[in-house]
Structure formats: structure tokens, C-alpha cells
């Protein structure tokens, strides 16, 4: 474009730059995922000791509500995240599966603590399920016995990154 008026430089690509800087193009799915990632509602499903750390994470010091995750719903039909916190025994396993089935799509599962990941300290017991991923698909595993509330929050943030389409395993360059 030629020069106009009082010495105002006009960039050849100005139209394109304006579009890049001021308009976001995305799909409806990605936008919904973004909104969902900021407000996951867990279902209250604490089984054992890890449940106490989950409750402490919702307390005043390790505040979960600054991320939008503090609304724990008692009913699985109103929740979209299940945190399996604690040991899953053989007697409890069909109920875990039933609760998972009752949750509406899209739903996510976090396995919190070593008992939920693989049986933990009780792996050679006669009545413990060796890992909750034998019956339901798990998105994020949080190791620890019990994991600290900060570890639980880190797991939540990894799930949030996963929802937003970023790879959770990418090593951040400035870390």
C-alpha cells in the first residue's frame, strides 16, 4: 500500500497482524474444553487415608477453589471428575464401576495414592484390587502415600492441561 496522510507508515501485513492479535479462531469443542477445564466438579468419593488429604486440599490453606475445583458433588450424575482416593477392595470394586457408569460424559478419573495406582502397601493382600485402572480408565495418576495436597493440586493442573490439548509430559523450558 502507498503512503497516506501525515507520514503514517502502513505495514504490508497490517490486516493479517490485526486479525492475529485481536481475534481468536477455534472450534466450539476446544472452547467448551477450556471452560470445562476451569471448573471440574469432583464427586465425593474418598475411600481411605487419601480422602483426608483430599479434604485438607479443599480446606483453607491449600485452597482448591482458586482453581475452580472445590464444588464436590455428592451425586455422580452431577459430577464430571472422580478422584479415587484410597484402597479399592474386592468388595468395593463393583460399586466403583457402577458409580463410574453413572457419571455423564465427558468424565475423567484421577487415581490418587499408591493404593489406587497399583495396590500400594497392600499389594499382597487377599482382598485388595491391584490398581483401580483394572476396572475404569484413569487419566492422571498421583503417587504418594498419601500424596500431599500440593501433589493433588499438581495432578489437577495436569488434568487441566490435558483437557486443553497440551501434552502434560512436555518439559517446560524455564523449569
Amino acid at each position: 500500500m502507498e503512503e497516506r496522510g501525515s507520514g503514517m507508515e502502513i505495514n504490508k501485513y497490517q490486516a493479517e497482524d490485526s486479525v492475529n492479535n485481536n481475534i481468536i479462531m477455534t472450534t466450539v469443542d476446544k472452547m467448551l474444553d477450556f471452560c470445562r477445564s476451569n471448573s471440574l466438579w469432583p464427586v465425593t468419593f474418598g475411600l481411605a487415608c487419601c480422602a483426608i488429604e483430599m479434604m485438607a486440599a479443599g480446606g483453607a490453606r491449600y485452597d482448591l477453589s482458586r482453581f475452580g475445583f472445590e464444588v464436590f458433588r455428592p451425586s455422580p450424575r452431577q459430577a464430571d471428575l472422580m478422584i479415587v482416593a484410597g484402597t479399592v477392595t474386592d468388595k468395593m470394586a463393583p460399586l466403583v464401576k457402577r458409580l463410574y457408569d453413572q457419571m455423564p460424559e465427558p468424565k475423567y478419573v484421577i487415581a490418587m495414592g499408591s493404593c489406587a495406582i497399583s495396590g500400594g502397601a497392600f499389594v499382597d493382600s487377599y482382598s485388595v484390587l491391584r490398581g483401580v485402572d483394572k476396572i475404569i480408565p484413569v487419566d492422571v495418576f498421583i503417587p504418594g502415600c498419601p500424596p500431599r495436597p500440593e501433589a493433588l493440586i499438581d495432578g489437577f493442573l495436569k488434568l487441566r492441561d490435558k483437557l486443553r490439548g497440551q501434552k502434560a509430559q512436555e518439559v517446560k523450558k524455564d523449569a
Partner: protein
Amino acid sequence: MSMNNDSFETQEFKLNLGPQHPSTHGVYQAVLTINGEYVSEAENVIGYLHRGIEKMCESRTYTKIIPYTSRLDYLASMLNNHGYVGAVEKLMGVEVPERAEYIRVIMCELQRIASHLVMVASMALDFNAFTAWMYAFADRERILDLFEMACGSRLTVSYMRIGGLSRDLPEEFMPALKKLLKELPGRIKDFDNLVSGNEIFTGRSKNICPIDAKKAIDYGFTGPNLRASGVQFDLRKASPYSIYDRFDFEIPVLHNGDCFDRYYIRMLEMYQSLRILEQAVESIPEGPVMAKVPKVIKPPKGEIYHQIEGSKGLLGYYIISDGSTKPSRVHIHGPSFVNIGVIPEIARGITIQDFVSLLASLDIVLGEIDR
């Protein structure tokens, strides 16, 4: 619609309370047969957290069992550890050094306060007083900070060892504890003022499910539930173990035995625990924290039943040793397991909301019930 009640047929209905329920304090299920709002029969169903700890103890050495005992009553792990190592030390005849005994008492009383804070917070939360829950958990975090300073873990500590402790306290522990002891009584008093006189709280807990002394003894109640029913029995005074005979404290007793009394006795016990802590902090000596025990722990052949005053009742360990490095039988007597035995009888004729109050006031922990 016709208001003629004579032809109105009703039917009893079986309702499942749990095991996934915000008010059952864990994976506990109650199968209630209800007639309108009133419970006509209640049946306990437990075992959803049965991890087989007693069987696993038979294939672990004595020291390796200590982390498993932490996970029994996961709200009071220091107390569980204390009971177990006390039992093995009694079996072996080991004498624990003075400083280790004082530190054990400090940790146990701090843990008792933390456990009672969770109970009063959960009971308030069941009546929808969310702010009270926040207050109590914030105070509990400060106690857990002290635990983390001493042994690295907040919840399932395995701090005690057979013969003493795993390590001595760091330097910054005592100043931090003294600071907490100045501030904690005021915070507990705030909670007391907010909750105990509240009309909704008292309306939902006073005169609900009273249990008199005779019934409490018949059902094997111990601990705060027994003291709320009028029986003044505390193992720390009746048959002192460790060094509890050196401290001056009272045993509170209440006489109605209803849900409010079972809640209020825990508030009173927290004040007494603070008294014990102040005395222990003043008179703690220097010295070693571990006795001379052999590297491989092999108690002589025999059996023992050792009990301590836990935060929910008398926690007992029955250990049979056959002279080898692994015990032949370990049985853990959890007070919550005995406490739920009263529910089928007491829950007849109460409403469903009173059932929630009853469960909250009995203070059950599923790790101890199901083991």
C-alpha cells in the same frame, strides 16, 4: 386428592445409606428400612475397606508392621503407633528412655487434639455448618505442620520405633510448639462459642439417641463415648501407661449420653490435652531417644494384650509371638468396630436426619473398623 387416611396404604422401603455418601465418614453402608421418615430397622454393612492387615502382619517383621498400624485409624496414626510399639516393648521387656517417653506423650496428645478437631468439624459439616469445618481444619493444619517438622509426614506418620523414636526432634520444634500452645486455646474457644450454642446445632443433637451407662458398658463402649454416658473411666488415670502418671489433668464426664454430649466431651478433652502438653513441654529432659535394642527384633515366646487410650476409645493390640522375627498372630481391637454394634438397637424409631447425627457423634473411622 382425598384426605381420607383410612384407605391410604403405606409400605416400608429399604434405603441404602452409603457406601458412597457425603455423611458416612468413609465407606460404611447402612441398610435402613424406613416407614416415611422414620427408621424401623437399621443394619450395618461394613467390609468395604477390608485390606487384610491382620493376615499381612503375619508375614512381616515386627518393625515392618509399624507403617501398617499408621493406616488403621488414619486420623490418629501417632496413637496407633504408640499402642503397637508399647505392646512389643512390653513383650520384650525393653525400657524406653525418658526423653523418648516425653516426646511420645507430646505427639500423642497433639494427635488426639487433631483427631477430635476432625470429629467436631465433620459433625458440624453434616449439619451444613461449612465455616466451622474450615476453622477446625485450619487449626489442624498447624498441628500437622509440627508433625511434618518432626518426621516428614503429615498424616500417616511412622515416627515411633520399638525402643524409642526414629529420630530426635529438630531444634525449631519446641519454639513452634510453644507458639502453637499460646494460640490454640483461643482458636478452640472461638469454635466452641460459634458452634456449641448454635440453635440449629443443638436442635439437631440434643436429646437425640441417648445411651445410658448400663447400655454403654454392655455394648463395650470405651473412650469419649463412654465418658459422655456418665462412666468416668480413662485408662490414662485408671492404669497409667508410659509416663501419664506424672501429669495433672482431669477426666471430663457428661451424663445425658446424647449426640450433643458425645460432641461436647471431645471439646472438653481438647482443653485437657492442652494442659498435658504444657506440662510436658516444661519438663522434657535431654537424652537419647532410642534404647539399646538388637538389630533383629525377636521377642521371646509368649503373648500379650496391651491397650492405650486412643482418641476413639481403648485401642488394644493382642500379639502372639513364637520366638521368631515375625509374629504368629496380631489382632487389633479397634474401638470403632465395637461402637457400631449399638446402631441396630438405637436406631429404631428415629428419623433419617437423626441417623446422620448418630453416626457423626459416634466418630467412626473405617480403617479401624475394617482393618
